[in-house]
Every structure is written in structure tokens, then in C-alpha cells.
């Protein structure tokens, strides 16, 4: 029996990369897993099939984290079919390599919207149920770029730093309902947004990483599955950096 038996988890942006790995890890621990995606139908169906083949109850919803009505509808359907969502992983995020000098206002807005506003909207959608349950785990996927001075895109770093503030304030605000809010901040991984890192930057990064290699999405996903489990009962408002020591 896994650590998350009977739990209902929602992972935003769960169709590929780290999100998909987190879905897999949560399912392995016995959770019913739902995820949303905004594009990439094939990836989504692949993830869904993989979860179901592994014996998990799984749902995929095509809706953006910026579509408030879509999110609320998704959560309502999930509550009807699976039960109240008691785990939320705010994973949906995007990045874009562009120096500030060339950054368009739209670039800034898109990254801030998906990475920050998306977390806010998804959290608001699941929070009603968690408060009714007086139980919940919210895990925001941040980034090493939000905690350390790194040569990463400015809007991306700003958005991930914002998620830390979001984590801390929300943890304080809703802790009395026994809902914990934490942030997991990975360094460079072998999949996901790190794909966009130029080779010379990656080389420089690995030079400073004690383990000398990028992390894997599965390594981070396993940690995520622990962070949203009952075993992680007292950590709240924290940011956990998993970067191989940079």
C-alpha cells in the first residue's frame, strides 16, 4: 500500500516532462491522479494511458491554468468522479530564453501569467474542498533560478521567486485548516524547461554542481510524492531545493 492511497491529486501541466513524472510518482503511491494540459494532445493521451496501464485511476483535462471557469469545472467533475482534491501540484510553467533588452511586454506577461497566476487560479479552485476536508497538500514547483543568482531568463526567475512568496504567505493563511503549502525548487533537469538552456550555460552550471550532472525528473518526482504525503506532516511554507549542490 502506497503513501497516497485514497488521495485525489491534481497536477497542473501534467502531460509531459516533470509534470508527467510527478503524475507517475503519485500514482505509484496509490493516489487517484488527474492532470490538465493546454496543448499537446498526444502527450496527454500518452500520459493518461501510462497511468491507467499502471493500474491507477486517472483523468486528463484539456484546459489552461489561466481559464478560471475551466479549472473550476475540472475540479467539480473530479469531485464528482474521484472525490475532493486533497493534493495539488502547481507544476504548469514555461520559460523562454530572451534577454531583458529584447523582452516584449507580452513575453513578460505570458511567463508571469502561466507560472504565477496559473498557480493562484488552480489553488483557488481546489481550496474550497480542502477547507471542507480540513486537510490538503499544495506543492508549488519553483526553480533554483527563483532562489539563487543564476544566468536564467529574468521573467522566469522573477516568476519562480514569486512562487516562493506565494508559498509562504499562503502557508501562513491556510495552515489553520491543516493544509500545508510548500515549494520544490529543482535545479537543471534532464527534461522539461531545462531543454532550452544553451549548451555553454549548461556546461557552466554542471561545473558548479557538486554531483556534476543534471537531475532527473524521476528523482524530483519521487521527492514531490513524499512532500505531498502524510509522512511530510510538519513542513509548511518551505522551499526545498533539489539541485545536486550548486
Amino acid at each position, binding site marked *: 500500500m502506497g503513501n497516497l492511497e485514497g488521495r485525489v491529486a491534481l497536477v497542473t501541466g501534467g502531460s509531459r516532462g516533470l509534470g508527467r513524472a510527478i503524475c507517475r510518482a503519485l500514482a505509484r503511491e496509490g493516489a487517484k491522479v488527474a492532470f490538465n494540459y493546454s496543448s499537446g494532445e498526444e502527450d496527454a493521451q500518452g500520459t493518461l494511458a501510462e497511468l491507467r496501464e499502471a493500474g491507477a485511476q486517472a483523468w486528463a483535462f484539456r484546459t489552461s491554468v489561466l481559464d478560471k471557469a475551466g479549472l473550476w469545472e475540472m475540479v467539480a467533475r473530479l469531485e464528482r468522479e474521484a472525490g475532493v482534491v486533497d493534493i495539488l501540484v502547481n507544476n504548469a510553467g514555461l520559460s523562454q530564453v530572451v534577454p531583458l533588452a529584447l523582452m516584449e511586454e507580452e513575453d513578460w506577461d505570458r511567463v508571469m501569467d502561466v507560472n504565477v497566476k496559473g498557480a493562484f487560479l488552480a489553488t483557488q479552485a481546489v481550496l474550497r474542498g480542502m477547507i471542507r476536508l480540513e486537510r490538503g497538500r499544495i506543492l508549488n514547483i519553483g526553480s533554483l533560478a527563483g532562489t539563487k543568482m543564476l544566468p536564467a531568463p529574468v521573467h522566469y526567475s522573477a516568476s519562480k521567486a514569486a512562487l516562493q512568496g506565494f508559498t509562504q504567505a499562503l502557508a501562513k493563511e491556510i495552515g489553520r*485548516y491543516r493544509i500545508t503549502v510548500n515549494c520544490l525548487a529543482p535545479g537543471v533537469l534532464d527534461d522539461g524547461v531545462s531543454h532550452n538552456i544553451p549548451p555553454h550555460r549548461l556546461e557552466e552550471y554542471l561545473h558548479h554542481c557538486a554531483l556534476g550532472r543534471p537531475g532527473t525528473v524521476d528523482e524530483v518526482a519521487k521527492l514531490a510524492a513524499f512532500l505531498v504525503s502524510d509522512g511530510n506532516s510538519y513542513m509548511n511554507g518551505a522551499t526545498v531545493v533539489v539541485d545536486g549542490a550548486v
Partner: protein
Amino acid sequence: MVLRGGEAWRLRHCAKCGPREDRIAKDAREHLEAFLAPGREPSPDGAATKPFKRTTAACPTCLSLVDADVVIREGRVYFSKRCAACGPSEALVSEDARYYVEAYTYARAGSDPHRVDAKVAAGCPEDCGLCPDHEQHTCIPIFEVTDHCDLACPTCLVDNRSAHHLAPETFARMVDELIAREGQVEALAISGGEPTCHPRLLELVELASRPEIGRVMVLTNGLRIAKDRAFAEQLKAKGAYVSLQLDGFTPDVHRKLRGRDLTAEKEAALATLEELEIPTQLIFVAARGVNEDQIGKVVELFLSKDHFISLNFQPLAFTGRGGGTFPVDPMDRLTLTGVLAAVERQTGGALRANDFAPLPCPSPHCVALLYLLRMNDGGWVPFPRFADLRRHGGLLRNSAALPALPEIEQALQDVVYSLFARQDEVPGGRLILAALRRAIGAMFPSRPLPFQQAVRQGERQAKSIFVHHFMDPYDFDLERLRKCCNHYPQPDGRLMPACGFNLFHRGAAKGAETPRARFGVAPWNGEA
């Protein structure tokens, strides 16, 4: 026996073995029903009487402290007393046994006064002033600034002798002492007599208008406000609030309770207060068979005007120069719960008896209260319609409005989350959330507000209705007195809990000629 977490528990303390707790029922509600059932049966001969507890009461004849059984009969609560000198007597204390018993589940420990001056020697109420055994600090200080009055009410609960006006210097010293004891107070009441008879009342208002005091309230019959526009304008200019005695709308009510027809004067006072937008509390003394049929009408008036911040019902207490001789049937009188029932009946259920909750900081039998949230369309919704006040007990305060204080912000945020989680189950849930958003935004701006402004901001977001049952020789309960938070500061430095002062110290508990208790100290003692 206590009701805790939905269960019933018996708490025992053995001097040898220490404390012990035993659960006696898993379902507190069922246990309560079973407990109340025998006392609900029709019982013309008193046979189906259910003992509830014991307390210390007063003999209505000689005013001595006596043991009393608190008993439930036909759904009502009575004191059954035994006085060695005068014999047995009974008195009605509540018309609703369920409310009376459940009220205890709201009780919370009092806050000690910062300073007490009296020593514990003979016990309560003899050592009064306050003594270390008193279990509550001062929420509402009531300063009697004069014993002159322009009415001679048949129900007057004090003892006006037309002999004293408190000197501003003495008043200033008394306020200083109050602040030294309390730090800050949300409301200071200037009373009498009739305070508008005090020739230097406006000076007193000015002296009390300090940053540590949220609002200065002048408790008045309104006669001077009705006829002296310039005076009312000065009250407004000085930032005073008015507590207007308004017991009804018909000549017969005024004649019975106040001695003469005041209809026109009350209307004039109300018009002036509205025109000048003076924040006003209405005080309605309610008596069985006299004006209880006008309770709904005063609620309607209260909800119709923005300058009314609070409505205070006071079931008539039969004590004082007038009230001590006013005709009373101690077995059939209006009590706190009778007022609640009348509110529900006469508002057609717009307000319900169970919208009210016992105020937890004094004895829960002293005051029932209800806060109403202002909706964005100008309407009002009782807080219990969307918030469980047992869970959000921080919202139950002895305050005419919800002040914008940190503890209220926390309580409102709790309410927001509870409602947010079940907004589809609560009628008008989304509209109530929108109103709470407005209220929180106004009360808690990004820059902190000074105390007085914090108090005023809250008044624009919520109104209150209180039912405060002062005690008299029939329903006096020492347990209630020990937690009283309405205190009369005295010129000699004592702080006197209101009902104890009225019963034992004024020498007028049963009319003007009542002998003062041997330990009683007369009002105005130590006047400079």
C-alpha cells in the same frame, strides 16, 4: 458537566487524586435533549421539575444572599430560593431552558483587570471595587455624571436625588484611572441621571475624547436633543455618540415606563439625530404587557437608517428608585429569551431567535447579541446565517460594532474561508463573500488605522443588536455578577459592577427607601 467538541464530559477534581475527566455521552445534542426532556412536560403542579444546578441568589424580600436551586419546568428556568428569615420564593429567570443551558457552551474565561484595588475578605459582593476574585475586566465603563434628571420614570433603575453634578476635574481623574487600568476601551458611556442636565456635559465629552477611547456615548432620554438644536450640533462636533432611550412609539408606553407621553419629543430627537447623522444606539427597555408588541417596529426602524449603529434591548429590571416599586409578577416577566422570541415573531422571521448568541465574555446569561453584515446593496444579513459563531467566537464582543482590530481581521478571514468552502450551500453565499471583501478592504487598509478610526470603520460595515438583561432582586445570580464587565467607576476610585451596585450599594433596590446593605457604599462617595 461540560459540552465539548460535540460530546458531553463530566469534569471532576478530587483533592487527593487530582482532576479526572469522563465522557458521559458521545453526542452532546442528544444528551442535552434527554436532559431537558423531563423539564419540558406540562407541569401545573410543579411535579415535572428538573433540577439543573445550584447558585447563589438574593432574597427578594430582605436582599440577603441565599442558596437557590436552578430548576427547569415546562421549558422555562426558575430560581427556587430559601431564605432563613423570609421563607421560600421562586422567580422566573429564562423563558427558554434550552437557550439557558446551551449558553454555557459559549462561556469563555474572563480577562483579568490590569489592576484591582480591593482585597478579598468577606467575599462577593461585599469586597467590591474590584477585588481579585472578580473574573472580568471593564468592557463598558458607565460614568454617572449627574443625579439630576428631567424625567421621573416609574422604571428608573438608579436613585436620582438632584444633588450632584460630577466636576470635570473629578471626571478627568476617573478617566485617567480607567485608562491606567484598561489601557484602552472601545466605548465609554456617560450616563446619569440624565447627563444632558449636567451644565458642563460638553466639557466631559471633550475630556473623554482621547485616543485610548474608541467612542464616547451619551446615554440620554433625548429631550434636550429634541428641543436644543445647537446642543445637538455641539455633540456632533465633539464626535459624541448618542444612546437614545426609545421604549416604543405610543403614548401609553411612554406613560407607563417614563411617566408621561414622550411621543413628540422622541420623534423630534430621532429627526435631529438623523439629520445631523450622529451615530446612534437605540435602547429599548422592554416589559411584559407594556411594550413587548413594539419590538418588531423598533427593529424595523433600526435597520432602516445608516446612523443607527446598535440596538440594545433591556428586559425591564425591577430595581432602583422607580423600578424597585414597579408592578412585577416574578413568575411571568419578560426575560432575555422572551425578547429573542418576540424579535423572531414580530420580524416575520427576518431575524430569528437563533441568530443571536450569548456574549461569551461576561456570564453568557447577561447578554445575547447579533451582528448584521452590511450587504453591497444596503441590506443586512445576520452573521450566523453564514458563520458558525461557536467556531468564530472572536466575533462575539461586547461592542456596538466590529472594530477594525487585528483579532477581528483574523476572525473575519476565518469566516471568509469557511464560507468560501461552502458558498453554494449558503443562500446568497457569493453576495455575502462580496460584502465581506468590501468590509475587510475598508476595515483593514494597507496602512494601519488609529484606534478611534478603526472603531469607526467597523461601524460602517456591521450593526449590532444586543439584549442585555440587568438583574434585580428576583433574578440576581452571584455567578453572573462575578463576571460582569459593565462597571460604574466611582469618584472614590472603586469600579462597581453594575447590577451589584444597583442592588446592594445604591440603597434603592426596592425603591427609594430601601436600606443599604451593611457593606454598601453610597454613590458619589469621594466626590471632589
